[in-house]
């Protein structure tokens, strides 16, 4: 049983790295048939595969087309496994609201961050692109998000990020949320200037940042 389980976890992981949706679905079905824990199959199978894909991206072996295909395979497997998650697995996921700010429709970078956040165990609400500041704030309040993640590729729309933070301050709820920013023209200097809680240079960095903001001590330990 254990050897069989390890083989299936490896198959799920490989299916993601090899961008093979059919294989991901087949392996996920086998996991269900054999009564293997769905949560473990997602964590140690599909998510582990997505992390390997992320490493290949960092090494410039994979690029954005490959990452999107890997995520398609991951979600295909996830769709099979999710209905079989036990209730106690579903607890303690930190919520994130993510979107591309108003005036910009470049969303590939945002999509990658979303995928990697989900892979890392965050519960992500994706507003999409061209989103006015008020919608970020409203959604974050409604779902009880811990983190608001803002993306833009355009210098013309950077200022919209500051508008989200200003609105939080005006409503007196700035300290209830961590605001993180990223995208082509964004820098640590810009993040500091608008009073964001963090800046990430790429998707992998965004995960480290998000983890450190919700579990400050755990992240410090991991970094040491």
């Amino acid at each position, binding site marked *: 049983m254990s050897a069989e389980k390890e083989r299936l976890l490896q198959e799920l992981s490989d299916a993601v790295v090899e961008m093979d949706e059919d294989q991901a679905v087949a392996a996920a079905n086998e996991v269900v048939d054999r009564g293997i824990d769905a949560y473990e199959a997602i964590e140690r199978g599909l998510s582990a595969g997505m992390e390997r894909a992320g490493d290949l991206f960092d090494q410039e072996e994979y690029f954005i087309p490959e990452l999107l295909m890997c995520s398609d395979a991951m979600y295909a497997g996830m769709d099979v496994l999710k209905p079989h998650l036990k209730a106690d697995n579903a607890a303690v996921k930190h919520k994130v609201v993510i979107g591309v700010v108003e005036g910009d429709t470049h969303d590939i970078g945002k999509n990658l961050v979303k995928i990697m956040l989900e892979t890392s165990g965050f519960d992500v609400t994706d507003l999409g692109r061209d989103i006015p500041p008020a919608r970020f704030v409203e959604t974050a309040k409604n779902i009880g998000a811990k983190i608001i993640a803002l993306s833009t590729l355009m210098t*013309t*729309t950077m200022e919209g990020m500051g508008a989200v933070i200003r609105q939080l301050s005006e409503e007196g709820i700035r300290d209830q949320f961590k605001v993180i920013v990223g995208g082509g023209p964004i820098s640590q200097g810009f993040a500091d200037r608008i009073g964001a809680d963090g800046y990430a240079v790429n998707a992998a960095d965004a995960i480290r940042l998000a983890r450190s903001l919700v579990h400050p001590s755990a992240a410090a330990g991991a970094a040491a």
Partner: protein
Amino acid sequence: MTPNERFAAYAAGAPLDRLPCVPIVGNTAARVIGVKVGDFRGNGRLIAQAQVASYRLFGYDIIRIFTDLYTQAEAMGAKVAYPEDETAYLAAPAVDDITQLDRLHPADPLKDGYLPEHLEAMRRAVDAVGDEVAVTGALTCPFTNASFLVGADQLARLMMRAPEKVHRLCEISLATNLAYAEAIIAAGCTPSLTDAMSSMSVIGPRQFKEFSLPYLTRLIDFIHGKGKKVTLHICGKTSGIWEAMVAAGADCLSLDNAASIAEAKQKVGDRVRLMGNVTPSEVMLQGTTDDVRAATLACIGAGHDNPSGFIVASGCSLPTETPFANIHAMLDTVREAGWPVRRAV
């Protein structure tokens, strides 16, 4: 010296006052004449007026008629949103569904979308100052334009799942590009090629060679056939495709701040002129004049001895609200450095 005299002297190795310098001014030109960016929509006369005024104010060496990347895609059916006073952006690709590929046709630059107005802007700018400065017309390259026809996500997936469809899209894009390039040249300008999506920040070198390079090469061959030199700008990381960009026939590589001028000089500087790469947002938009001066000096230091020549430039188009003082500071720094570049640099 006029910009034309400066470039001619530089190419001939004759005495020169300074290196050519091009802070890539796009919609910042609206601020120069006090109009809104949205006023440029379909108004070639105003675009020309702003670009010529900007050239006269700052004294840089190339005028580039550019408002956004989407003019050709829009002429092929993509939906573009025009905020009142900010840069236009792609609201929706030309087709939502790849089965609608047959609906796409090459644009006629004399009729479709706002291409005629951009050509009008080019003609007017040439009429006004064409005897002293080169006027170029921005042209979004086949692969990037294709991404606006079906959407970037969909194009990326098609590359893996149905490569033949990507080739069809690039072929249709190229047909528009060739017609537009011809019209730009007929307007007295040189096409200025920009290919954001071909960046290694998006696709890999193998994918560039398969999907972008063949069409880029045909486009550049066509422009060369009309007796014009080609500057090729690809955003973001590009070091792994410099050789391919040179193989495509580019005469000048315009490099983003994510690339290294010093490294490009070593690898391809014997064959192509380089242009770049002061950071548009962090330095030009947000920095002080001292920051601009330091960054410009660093560029001059890295590029001035490039065997095939160097143009001091921003790494990409400048953000609309770039302070005028920073653009002046870039030019002033290049003037002070002189030519040959002073030792102090």
